[in-house]
């Protein structure tokens, strides 16, 4: 029971296997390279399982020893938002992406790349700090007076809850930003996810009290006027968040806010 190799997955010489082609980069300033891998196919496996296989036995299809592939993941049930990556050309959560679904033909490779809109840390792991900073920019929180006991919160109708709840499910994965033509360093655009959060907080009775601050933040550079209505965002959101509705609604709020502001002088 000692040799490491006796427990590693058997090299997939025979039987069905999944071929992976992975875009790799050892560090932010290191050159990009592509590596090919083959792992045994099992029904129902997701992309993370394939990456775990590689970690356990980091050898390329050509037989060259290499390192395990770096990636972000935590929950493995599509709720923490860590594992977004570009899978066969489209951003998806690696944990909930089943090979059977994205790769009906096992002769085709599974191509994995890091999200391109964020700086690469290593391989498939990227730095999404900008997303969290943008949430700060729009004050995405309810400004409560304090955490001491002040009694119950405001009442809320079932209908309002059922409208707000879907918005509150955003996992900050960044998929919507990956496909947004306007989301880049130059525009500084905050993107669909953050705009949708503004809608969520403005919906809340207490959050509405400082809606103007959030709307103000969306009037400046990188604000909502950057949106080019490509409508790609809504198609790739794993949580089915109605992003284009959010952009339209917040767009009207921002307009009303700026008009109000100019009237007030």
């Amino acid at each position, binding site marked *: *029971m*000692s*040799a*490491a190799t006796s*427990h*590693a997955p058997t090299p997939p010489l025979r039987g069905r296997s999944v071929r992976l082609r992975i875009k790799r980069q*050892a*560090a932010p300033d290191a050159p990009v390279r592509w590596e090919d891998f083959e792992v045994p196919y*099992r029904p129902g*496996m*997701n992309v993370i*399982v394939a990456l*775990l296989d590689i*970690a*356990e036995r980091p050898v390329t299809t050509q037989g060259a*020893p*290499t*390192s*395990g592939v*770096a990636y*972000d993941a*935590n*929950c*493995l*049930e599509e*709720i*923490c938002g*860590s594992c977004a990556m570009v899978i066969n050309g489209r951003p998806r959560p690696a944990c*909930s992406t*089943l090979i*059977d679904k994205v790769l009906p033909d096992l002769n085709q490779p599974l191509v994995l790349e890091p999200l391109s809109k964020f700086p690469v*840390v*290593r391989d498939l*792991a990227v730095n999404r700090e900008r997303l*969290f900073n943008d*949430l*700060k920019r729009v*004050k*995405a*929180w*309810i*400004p409560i007076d304090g*955490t001491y*006991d*002040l*009694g*119950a*919160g*405001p*009442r809320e*109708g*079932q209908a309002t*809850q*059922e409208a707000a*709840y879907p918005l*509150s499910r955003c*996992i*900050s994965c960044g998929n919507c930003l990956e496909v947004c033509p306007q989301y880049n360093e130059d525009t500084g655009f905050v993107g669909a996810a953050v705009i949708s959060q503004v809608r969520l*907080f403005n919906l809340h009775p*207490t959050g509405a009290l400082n809606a103007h601050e959030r709307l103000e933040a969306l009037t400046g550079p990188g604000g909502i006027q950057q949106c080019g209505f490509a409508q790609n965002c809504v198609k790739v959101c794993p949580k089915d968040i109605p992003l284009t509705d959010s952009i339209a609604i917040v767009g009207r709020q921002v307009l009303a806010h700026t008009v109000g502001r100019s009237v007030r002088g």
Partner: protein
Amino acid sequence: MATHKANIIVVGGGLAGLAATMKIAEKGHHVDLFSVVPVKRSHSVCAQGGINAAKNLKGEGDSTWSHFDDTIFGGDFLANQAPVKRMCEAAPGIIDLLDRMGVQFNRTPEGLLDFRRFGGTLFHRTAFAGATTGQQLLYALDEQVRRHEAEGSVSKHEHWEFLSGVLDGNGACRGICAMDLRSMTVATFPADAVIMATGGIGAIFGKSTNSIACTGSAQSALYQQGACYANGEFIQVHPTAIPGEDKLRLMSESARGEGGRVWVYREGKPWYFLEEWYPKYGNLVPRDVATRAIHKVVFELGLGVEGQDAVYLDVTHLDRHTQDAKLGGILEIYEKFVGDDPRKVPMRVFPAMHYTMGGLWIDTERQATNIPGLFAAGECEYQYHGANRLGANSLVSCIFGGMLAGPAAVEYAHSLPQGAAATPSGVFEAEQKRQIEINDRLFHNLGRENPFVLWKEMGRTMTEHVTVSRDNAKLRGADAKLQELLERYRQVSLADQTRWANQTFFFTRQLFNMLQLARVVTLGALARDESRGAHYKPAFPERDDVNFLKTTKAHFAPDADEPRLSYEPVDTSLITPRARKY
């Protein structure tokens, strides 16, 4: 040092860590918040079903005393009663606070909070936000902490891993040593006090319902530095999870709380064995009871679905609105990961390791560990659940514990004759040097062992012998196996020698701590010759209050490189222990 601005380190940004941070920052003190993942991605997001508080909004006559009694009874009388009572009394206020922060709890037609039933109680006591309650709660706290961050009172250190505490000559905690998970820099950080909120230990069992970051590595490192670890043997195995190769995904108890039924075929007909065996609680018996029942049906009666290790969890008879508005989040998980629509076909589930009742020992008042200046809150400590946790009680214990630990740490800081600045720099340098040496040794190892293989073997051993049913000979065997793995760990070699964001390296480092903690769990179970809550020994089927109504405390003995167990009495001052029958 009267009331200067304190500087507190909080390790972990799940519900417990964020609750502590919020409390400290609100009072104008400063927090350095460390987390291996961005705090918004902490494991707490996984919690599905809800959070308990006896708000009695359904006219059932629920009370905080009933919540307290259910919790103590559910925990088989192993929890200290005074702190549990305080938690249950605080719970309704915690729900109000979360509500004020904008958590999208489900509502009644009148616009009030809605409550569902959970296991181990007869009351509707669980507030919920769809089936993604943990996500909603964590986000609410994350947003409050982001506000404090924007105002300068919180500095986040995300993608930093806690390696050890910095202990001064008197054994007091003066800060931490941590590693940047990108540059791999090892650095020390001084603080007036440190709060640990590093969550669960699922990875010790290989596969569990927990997130990847739940390794228990931080708790184990502190245990090896002298922190006492309590009731490690109490491990909750959740009755209903979806088997998977990378993870055992939970199917929340809320599925049963909303009317879901558990069954298997017997003689060609559905047999609702929980309802038959436990007519009063039915499908909502506590987790340990349901788990053992499922094991019995599958392993003793051989009635697993299609001969496999599975039973049906059925929500197909529920109306569409309940399925979507109250359970949508979890049914979606099943649909996404299994491919079948659970609205139409019964789900196949099986028990999985889920939660640790044990954890760092803390006192009954202040969440203080036995190391001065070191506090703990959340799943990483042991205080609130006794021998078995009731569903939806963890989220409340995390927030309650965090809200207690924060102010307690500040108070401690103010009681110090001298702040962190007075600690000689040599104390920090020595700890940093020790940790860098551990890293270097690991990089220079040239053995033949593969860390992932060792981890799998540990997981298999722990799952087979240290979960649902325990036998002394097998526990001894498991401990021998763990010692063998620790021995083989010395021969571990790293294929990846790079010193930048080397995830294999991080994992391998954690693995050592996991093995040490696995021994605490195993030896604690071996020593406890009784059955209580989640700890079940067929050879000792009864609870034995004469010999074992006591808290297990494990101390690391450095010379022997293994745990030493001692015991302390449990506070049973409010409710006299009675037989636990459902």
